[in-house]
């Protein structure tokens, strides 16, 4: 079941133009959890003085990881859409490094999924943390 969903999730991400444009890839999926990453790209710089990526790039990665975690939750039977998303930026991601996001869908109700996520670069310190609510389609009771 999870393998089927993992395959589905990978196809799903590959079909999203915005994820492709940012070169977001799925590293791993578990039941209700997802790990996604994207490479450093000078086109995505938000602070030219330091070369740090723009917060909007981290937002895209976190949002995609969180959506994937919802789709990979055993109770979720379909797609999802973001209802709200809060992101806390702890520090700038180190220039030149990959950014990885780990998302966990920790609660699914009939219509809403609650998700948390963190993003880190190749060091171990957290770059950003996120909390969000997502829509759920076709809940498996």
């Amino acid at each position, binding site marked *: 079941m999870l393998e089927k969903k993992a395959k589905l999730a990978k196809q799903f991400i590959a079909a999203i133009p915005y994820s492709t444009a*940012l070169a977001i890839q799925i590293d791993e999926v578990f039941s209700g959890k997802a790990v996604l990453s994207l490479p450093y790209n000078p086109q995505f710089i938000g602070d030219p003085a330091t070369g740090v990526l723009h917060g909007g790039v981290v937002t895209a990665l976190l949002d995609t990881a969180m959506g994937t975690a919802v789709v990979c939750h055993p109770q979720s039977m379909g797609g999802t859409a973001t209802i709200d*998303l809060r992101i806390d930026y702890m520090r700038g991601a180190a220039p030149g490094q990959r950014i990885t996001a780990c998302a966990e869908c920790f609660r699914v109700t009939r219509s809403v999924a609650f998700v948390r996520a963190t993003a880190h670069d190749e060091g171990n310190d957290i770059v950003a943390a996120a909390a969000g609510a997502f829509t759920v389609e076709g809940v498996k009771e």
Partner: protein
Amino acid sequence: MKQPEPVQVVKQRRDAALAQLAGALPFINFLGVKFERRGDELTSILPYAEKLVGNPILPALHGGAVGAFLEIAAQIELAWSIYWPQFEAGATGPNAMPKTIDFTIDYLRTGLPRDAYARAVVNRSGRRFASVHVEAWQDNRRKLFAQATGHFLMPLKHD
């Protein structure tokens, strides 16, 4: 009596300041965000592009693209308000950007495959922190498709 500046001089100076401020961030260029200015009022524009799609079946804009657009609109509005007096005095950049501390996005409606617009309001701009609210719409100004509030760390003053 001092003569007021010719209108072309004022416009040219302000447009150049805005272009320089926004042009410094490669990610703004990547997303394709444009800015329109009426005096000091800014409207951010996200022209529709296929790469911004997050759901190809509907199709709908990606939440990450919408979030990034709102964050850029808020950040540029804040920077514009911070540096406005300097720009008016004829100073030019480079200008350090305010850094995002947190950003909370409400996705109110599906982002349709067409242009999006945003306007931001700086609700509080202190010495160290600022709070900015931003609203985005597509076809109808009163029907927002997303809004966000963010806190920013003010750039250090070098004077």
